[in-house]
């Protein structure tokens, strides 16, 4: 059953991706229009879609920084300690 569901979704990958984009858009819209931000700690939390940008940037920064850091020489061949 699980496999059939996954196959069903994979066959319609383009549609699934579009639905996901629409869902992201709706999420930001919902946040802007309907969510009460009375408890916000910072002024910038009240900007529409602030946490979306935060999440996206956090993700990109983590990936780029880590890869840069790893290629400084931290990442090495697998038999490094076996010599």
């Amino acid at each position, binding site marked *: 059953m699980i496999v059939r569901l996954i196959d069903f979704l994979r066959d319609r990958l383009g549609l699934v991706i579009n639905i996901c984009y629409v869902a992201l858009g709706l999420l930001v819209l919902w946040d802007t229009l309907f969510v009460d931000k009375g*408890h916000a700690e910072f002024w910038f*939390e009240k900007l529409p879609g602030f*946490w979306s940008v*935060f999440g996206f940037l956090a993700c990109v920064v983590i990936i780029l920084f880590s890869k840069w850091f790893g290629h400084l*020489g931290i990442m090495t061949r*697998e038999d490094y300690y076996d010599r």
Partner: protein
Amino acid sequence: MIANVWLHPTLIYLIGAFFLPLIPRGLRKPYLVFVPCLAFLGVLTMNGSHGVHGVFQYLDWTVIFGRVDALSLVFAHIMTLMCVIGTIYGLHVERDAEHIAAWLYVAGSLGVIFCGDYLTLFLFWELMAFSSVFLIWFRGRKQSLGAGYRYLLVHVAGGLFLLAGIILRYKATGGDLSFGPIGVDHPTLPTYLIMIGFILNAAVPPLHAWLPDAYAEATVNGAVFMCAFTTKTAIYALCRAFAGMEILVPLGVCMALYGVVYAVLENNIRKLLAYHIISQVGYMVAGVGIGTELAINGACAHAFAHILYKGLLFMGCGSVLHMTGKSDFSELGGLYDKMPKTFVYTLIGGLSISAFPLFSGFVSKSMIVAAGMESHHATAALLLLVASAGTFLHTGLKVPYFIWFGKNNCSAQTRELAKDPPSNMQWGMAIAAFLCIFIGCYTPYLYSMLPYQAAAAEYHPYELSHISETLQILLFTALGFFLLLKKLTPEAKISLDMDWFYRMGGRAFAWFAQKPVQGADNVVSEAYRTTGLVPLMATARFWSWFDWNGIDLVVDGIARTVRNAGANLRHMQSGQLQVSILAAMSLVAIALVLYVFV
């Protein structure tokens, strides 16, 4: 000597482990489930027995085996529950010694959780290290042997810091051994030494490298146990003694981010999960450092939730390793049609660790972040939110994607072997997965156990603004993941970490011992052999001949009897150091039980 009917769960595990080899084959599996269930039920019945039990006088000291309060109970609850799940998951393991090692390890953890003084704490602290190392060694690979010794080395060193701290504190306070709030306002040298002992077990950088090194090399079942007990017992100890220790806030935040960065680079699945333990324990360490009632509640709640979802993740990825023998991303991929149930369970673990609404992480992690916001640690709280994006990025997305989807790197043999694991392993995962969702949906189960009830009652995770904030961070992280998917393709490489220093340092030491020291020794021995030893040996041979053939034969043949007995005894020793350590450990445990309770 037992003061009342309060039964220490440690005792249940010790006795259970002792009798396990004697249980008939047909009863073995029921017995394996029965013992941890008994211990769990024992903890459940302790709700009414808050107070101090099992107090003994030992020389000049009062040792306390059973301090029962809200803080020790919430940890005891989850530890004994995890032992039930872990044992069910490992029911197929035939080797008794692996179950015994796991139970002794749990016994040590509960000993720490219920103890009321530093002597008892130290004793059980060491029991944990010395029993858990077998969970690494039983993997049986050459690398596991080395990883086990490194694990032991680091933990023994940490234990010495702890012991030094305990002794210095004993001196400085004029004989105080009680294990309670240590006085974080004016930390002294002993305070820091004890803290080092604790945070080494919590895997705070730079004292963390033992964790990914060891957990990735442990047995499939062993890693499920290890990921729960060592670090979370350390969190318990920190909650008990170091609540409000300011330095733990930056340390915890660094941990949370450090684990995330290394997880990006990691190619081995279980090592990736291990780096995420460091990251998640970072939240708890920061929570302890913040030290408010809400923060301590958060640290406890997060430890509770973490044990379940991390156990679940290690069970899921362990199943892949168990079935296919592979644990590198670069040798896996596209397995969704082969191991669909394992995929779903692992995904539930991934969504829980990422703190999706309705999953356990959502109701626990946010408590620590909220406590940070409330108590003027806003920067720390924001950095923890960055780390939470990284958590979803790896455990929620990278792990499922690159094992079950993505590019198929499997060999024909791997695909042939891949299928959902035996039913007991699936049951283990199913129970953990159910609890992850149950905790997320029904908050009173967890919240009613937290140490500060007033603060727990005031906290409501399911506010619209919080749900919206979390969903935005997580879903836009997912967007970033898919846009940068190429960058994230795992590389068949390892990452150097702090263990480099002792691995390479050990090598330098070995060179020094082999070359200059042993070389000089050889020269001296050679000179001695030619000038002194040869004539000496000739004389000795004569006297030996005379003693054996002359005296022993004439007297009563005692030497021959002793030699034969010695030869028989020798066959019982395999010569492996690990076996000797196991024997010695068992003896110590038995002697201890006899001493205390008889």
